[in-house]
């Protein structure tokens, strides 16, 4: 009977305690769910186990013997294998399925100069058959679907005789059929004595396949439970709990006409018949957990990706948005989640950033008018309240909150009417958060419409008028903010409404 224990694990990142005295254990043949809200520390805990982090406190034991894991190879030697959601990071795309499954064998077991292709193919084929899969081992991995790639990685883990398999949100990108198949395999692995740790946001799946649940919250263990004694409601309750209260400004904006309506929108990123509408002066929330489809929906609205079905209606007029440039022209603005990567040009000045979408209006012919740009920028800086000595300051030197203000500010100048904000307060300190909330308040007072995507339910509750809960790529539930609770939001985010 194998047993893996993590004892008193503490992990700090600069300024944040990600995990605090966490104890966790898995025994042989157990499917163990690790759940918690975003930022609870699930992934951090599993990355420690997989050897992705080096600096941490605490001890690891296998069958009572202390082990040291400081890199992925250590983890593998101890029989621990992780399959990340980004499967491509572990695969060699232009080699065959057989080679990818047998990678370790090719590298370390055989010391012959020449490859024994027959053996490699035969053994890989057996592995695939044993898992009950239908994949041609001669196929190139680059030609596989995402689900098949996962299977190849699981096959590799089995081949490596892994005792502990960690699946990091494996089902988020899968279809219902593919998920079913994955579960069949997990059940089979369990029967063969493998322990599977299953990180997920989808509670319905937890109840379908896991016998134990460990709940993390704010880097601490809430508890480990037997699934049979639990219900979704109780789990949701355990996942939540009081956090630091953030105050939200009261916004008194008059709600006007319908600005944007989305009907049955499907397309890139697994978005599947999403519906929403937003009026002038209104803030609507897109609530949901990571993988629910918030970011994908925001991007799809902004013309990043391909719409396969459905309609976008702007001010009563059907529009087709195929590119971000078109979206800007129609009066949409997106403040993306990855601020430093997608939202601002960090190595450019505030002035450059803020006048970017509207640069044409500060130009005479092809030439930029420096004075006009300076004047506009200074006005904008004052109006938005960016803390900076001057407009020439590089955005890289600003605090996270001020960077976000630049990202929002550039769209104010462009006269955008519908603002799509994707996790605008991510990685921003509490003081700056309040200022960003104020800024959003100002937006709606001016009659703009705001779509506010966030995985922080308290934000959704504090800021929005209505909220849509995203689950599995669709707007699973519409709620009036005043009448809902954090529990209800989490319930629907975790697929609570989709059970039965």
């Amino acid at each position: 009977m194998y047993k893996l224990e993590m004892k008193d694990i503490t992990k700090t990142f600069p300024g944040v305690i990600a995990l605090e005295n966490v104890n966790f254990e898995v025994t042989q043949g157990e499917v163990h769910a690790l759940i918690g809200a975003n930022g609870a520390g699930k992934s951090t805990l599993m990355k420690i186990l997989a050897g992705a982090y080096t600096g941490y406190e605490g001890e690891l034991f296998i069958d009572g013997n202390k082990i040291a894991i400081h890199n992925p190879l250590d983890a593998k030697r101890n029989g621990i294998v992780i399959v990340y959601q980004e499967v491509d990071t572990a695969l060699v795309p232009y080699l065959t399925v057989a080679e990818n499954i047998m990678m370790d064998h090719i590298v370390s077991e055989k010391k012959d100069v020449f490859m024994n292709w027959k053996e490699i193919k035969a053994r890989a084929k057996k592995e695939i058959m044993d898992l009950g899969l239908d994949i041609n081992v001669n196929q190139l991995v680059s030609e596989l679907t995402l689900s098949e790639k996962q299977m190849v990685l699981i096959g590799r883990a089995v081949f490596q005789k892994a005792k502990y398999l960690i699946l990091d949100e494996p089902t988020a990108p899968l279809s219902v059929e593919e998920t079913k198949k994955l579960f069949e395999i997990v059940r089979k692995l369990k029967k063969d004595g493998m322990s599977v740790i299953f990180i997920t946001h989808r509670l319905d799946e937890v109840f379908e396949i896991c016998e134990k649940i460990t709940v993390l919250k704010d880097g601490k263990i809430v508890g480990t439970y037997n699934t049979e004694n639990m219900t979704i409601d109780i789990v949701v309750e355990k996942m939540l709990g009081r956090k630091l209260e953030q105050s939200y400004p009261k916004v008194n904006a008059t709600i006007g006409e319908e600005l944007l309506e989305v009907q049955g929108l499907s397309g890139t990123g697994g978005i599947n018949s999403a519906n929403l509408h937003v009026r002038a002066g209104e803030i609507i929330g897109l609530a949901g957990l990571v993988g629910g489809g918030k970011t994908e929906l925001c991007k799809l609205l902004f013309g990043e990706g391909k719409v396969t079905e459905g309609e976008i209606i702007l001010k009563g007029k059907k529009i087709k948005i195929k590119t971000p440039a078109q979206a800007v022209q129609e009066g949409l603005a997106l403040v993306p989640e990855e601020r430093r990567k997608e939202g601002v040009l960090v190595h450019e000045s505030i002035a450059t950033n803020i006048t970017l979408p509207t640069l044409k209006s500060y130009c005479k012919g092809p030439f930029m008018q420096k004075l006009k740009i300076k004047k506009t920028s200074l006005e904008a800086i004052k109006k938005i309240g960016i803390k900076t000595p001057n407009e020439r300051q590089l955005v890289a030197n600003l605090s996270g909150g001020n960077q976000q203000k630049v990202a929002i500010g550039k769209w104010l100048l462009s006269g955008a009417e519908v603002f799509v904000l994707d996790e605008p307060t991510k990685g921003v300190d509490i003081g700056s958060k309040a200022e960003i909330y104020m800024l959003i308040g100002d937006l709606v007072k001016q009659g703009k419409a705001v779509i506010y995507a966030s995985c922080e339910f308290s934000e959704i509750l504090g800021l929005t008028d209505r909220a849509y809960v995203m689950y599995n790529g669709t707007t699973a539930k519409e709620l009036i903010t005043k009448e809902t609770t954090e529990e209800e939001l989490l319930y629907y985010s975790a697929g609570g409404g989709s059970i039965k």
Partner: protein
Amino acid sequence: MNENVKAKKIDFYKLFYKYGTIFVIIAAVLFFSITLENFMNFRNITNVFRSVSIVALIALAITLSLTVGGFDLSVGATAGFASVIAAKIMVIWEMGPAMAIIVPLLAGGLVGCINAFLIIKVKITDMLTTLSMMFVLTGISITFQNGSAIYNYMPLPNNAGIAKGTMNEAFLYIGQGKLLGIPVPVIIMLTVVVLVHIFLNYTRYGRYLYMTGGNEEAAKLSGIPINKYKLIAYVMSGFIAALGGLVLGSRLGSGEVNAGGSYLMDAVAAAYIGYSVLGIGKPNAFGTLLGALLMGVLLNGLIMMDFPYYSQDIVKGFVLIFALGLTYYKRKE
């Protein structure tokens, strides 16, 4: 019904993806055979093979660097460098053919070592490292021969009379000789193609190169010492490029710096066309050979049809675009 049509369309696409490049080669050969009397005879075919032998060797050098996800732009210059050293050894230093073969090959390997060191340890990107190396080598080659070519009975500087050494007969055999009616360069080229093919596909080390190039992180985690295999790839690249240089020098019967540089772009094209052959989608020896042959056949045929030689690059460019299109368009899917 509708789905049937769709499935057929995809199959057709797949077929084209897999056999597109080969199809183009066959079409070109057929076209020239029908329109040109003298195309399909032993002499001309030998001629095509001989003309692509140097490009193919240099392209194989690039192919090896590509397998580890790198890129070696210095191969053309390495070839030129090798030919100049060989000529200097024989003509100026009056040494035998053995030295004229061994020293340049070792020099090629050394160039690969330096490239690998700069890429792995100093962490300059592969393109820039090898681009710089290209300049350095070209410069050294010119300095080495005092700014002019090295040839038999050349006048020596400072009125020192005429060079006493000559390009050795045995050395010239490499580029000009024939064995059983087949030009030696062709035999060398085919031998290297087969060896590289066996190395890449049937030995563990070849697989390590592919794994390193395909996914460095995954390769590392499987326990492959990736830096060692990058080094090996670049050393082999330099070595094979130098071999190409020897064939080149031997064929010209002299040592000329710029002779190697002009092969670089053709070789890059051949290696990338190789990606698309049979839809393999990765650098490979036979694909590279076919890439070199495809361009050789097209140029040979076009020249026989009085296509102006100065417009050849247009054809080469389009063939390369076609092949890259086949490889990359698929990847986006």
